[in-house]
């Protein structure tokens, strides 16, 4: 089959909707358009039935029960509700008491949707420990254990990292927290994990879990927060008040079409998970091995085994990420380069791993998906290798490297 351009290799950013998802959603726009809050007519009942079914589909993918699923606008809202709602509910001392309101543990490589709520709580009187992972990017149970304090109320760690795909020891951390006998709520941002990898909130001792629909071939603008109901029953302060939907955790008329789509996406995810994982990990491995074999001074970032099947993050020494993406514009991917970010700062995740600013500027994230083909990956390999070679021919740093000059010893006139 002829390749169509550009080739989409940015599935960690978002995924296309599965056509089966769109099909499941369509009736809820026009015929079954009711408000599930309308308890007195069939329009409301129909919509409610759609939401109920979706709630079960989402619960199934997490190993939870349907009553433990709160629908939100996406993982960002889920994270905010879990962290802020959890901190406010479990605070040790009230604001203005002059004492620490409570201690929170998270890590420096979390998504901004976790970091920023934590930083806001810090300003408001909570104390936050930001764990720093080693260069493999993996947060272990021991690191969390060492950071625990008597006033720790919440631990929030991502299941898998969105930039490098590394997997934290979530089940081990959950087990450690449970065994510690402390009353600490354990939240995980599973945006890149849930629906892609086997999950059992019960077995893994997770209390709160955020997930998103659009990362798993569902629609945008919908997500879920799992809130444990038994052992312990987790409570949260709501952030959006109003009609009391979603058991009062999250008011607002439900996004029925989105929710139905997310449910369908979860159902498909359960069926196709093993096949997707096997196929994508093979593809990713080939991609990484092929480019690193053809190019010197190239490194794959993050732990070699403990990572998601579909995300490859590679630094190409002596070339800059934005120009690299320009040189392979037939491929849609992302970069840790400052020039591609709104903040003009290189990736804080790669910096957090100690990758070094110059290699952070030189990184590409390629993330594969359900419809990525071997031909597309072959094309990407060929294009990336050619682009790196072209840019290295332009790079004064590569010349200096070849001449045996140690770049770290050069006195740069920074600006």
């Amino acid at each position: 089959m002829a390749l169509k351009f550009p080739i989409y290799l940015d599935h960690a950013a978002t995924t296309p909707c599965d056509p089966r998802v769109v099909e499941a959603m369509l009736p809820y726009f026009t015929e079954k358009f009711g408000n599930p809050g309308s308890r007195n007519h069939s329009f409301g009942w129909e919509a409610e039935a759609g939401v109920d079914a979706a709630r079960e589909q989402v619960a199934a993918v997490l190993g939870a029960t349907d009553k433990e699923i709160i629908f939100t606008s996406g993982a960002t809202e889920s994270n905010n509700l879990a962290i802020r709602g959890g901190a406010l509910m479990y605070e040790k001392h009230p604001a203005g008491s002059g004492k620490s309101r409570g201690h929170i543990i998270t890590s420096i490589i979390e998504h901004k949707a976790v970091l920023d709520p934590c930083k806001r709580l810090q300003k408001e009187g909570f104390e936050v420990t930001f764990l720093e992972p080693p260069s493999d990017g993996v947060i272990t149970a021991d690191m969390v254990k060492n950071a625990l304090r008597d006033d720790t109320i919440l631990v929030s760690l991502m299941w898998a990292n969105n930039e490098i795909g590394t997997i934290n020891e979530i089940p081990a951390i959950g087990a450690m927290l449970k065994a510690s006998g402390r009353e600490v709520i354990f939240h995980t941002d599973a945006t890149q994990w849930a629906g892609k990898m086997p999950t059992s909130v019960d077995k893994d001792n997770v209390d709160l879990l955020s997930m998103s629909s659009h990362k798993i071939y569902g629609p945008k603008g919908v997500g879920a927060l799992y809130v444990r109901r038994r052992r312990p029953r987790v409570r949260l302060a709501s952030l959006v008040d109003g009609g009391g939907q979603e058991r009062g955790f999250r008011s607002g008329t439900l996004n029925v079409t989105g929710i139905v789509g997310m449910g369908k996406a979860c159902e498909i995810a359960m069926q196709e998970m093993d096949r997707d994982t096997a196929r994508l990990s093979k593809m990713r491995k080939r991609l990484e091995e092929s480019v690193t074999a053809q190019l010197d001074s190239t490194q794959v970032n993050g732990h070699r085994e403990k990572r998601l099947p579909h995300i490859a993050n590679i630094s190409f020494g002596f070339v800059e990420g934005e120009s690299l993406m320009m040189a392979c514009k037939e491929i849609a991917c992302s970069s840790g380069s400052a020039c591609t970010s709104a903040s003009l700062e290189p990736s804080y995740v790669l910096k957090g791993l100690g990758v070094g600013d110059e290699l952070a500027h030189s990184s590409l994230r390629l993330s594969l998906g359900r419809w990525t083909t071997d031909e597309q990956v072959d094309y990407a390999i060929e294009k990336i290798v050619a682009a790196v070679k072209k840019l290295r021919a332009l790079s004064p740093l590569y010349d200096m490297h070849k001449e045996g000059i140690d770049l770290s010893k050069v006195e740069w006139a920074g600006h």
Partner: protein
Amino acid sequence: MSYGPKIIDHYENPRNVGNFGTQADVKTRKDVGVGLVGAPECGDVMQLQIKVDQATGKIEDAKFKCFGCGSAIASSSLATEWLKGKSLDEGLAIKNTQIVEELSLPPVKIHCSVLAEDAIRAAIADYKAKNGLPADADTAQSR
């Protein structure tokens, strides 16, 4: 970032890529001035080399290499085009704002043009220093 046609053209067909020898070579060449500005951790490094006809004092050739984004590559490529055939004083008269205008650089990329101007000044200053010419008051001020 979506770029205008002139940046794309310079990026895809960069002019005057190269150098007049290794770092060690050019250090000893009196007819060559080298400007190396920026830093790898900032995400851009430009190397601009000028070759001066010592009889006429004109820049007869200019070469560049650049580690950086598309705008940085385009800015340095353009700088080499403009430098050729100019006297040192004329070279020093090139301003970053002219580069911004010529390439229609977006506001977040203005620093690339500043870096190119710095590279021009550094290369000319290097040439002057090697040949015992008085440093221009302007060039002595580094940014």
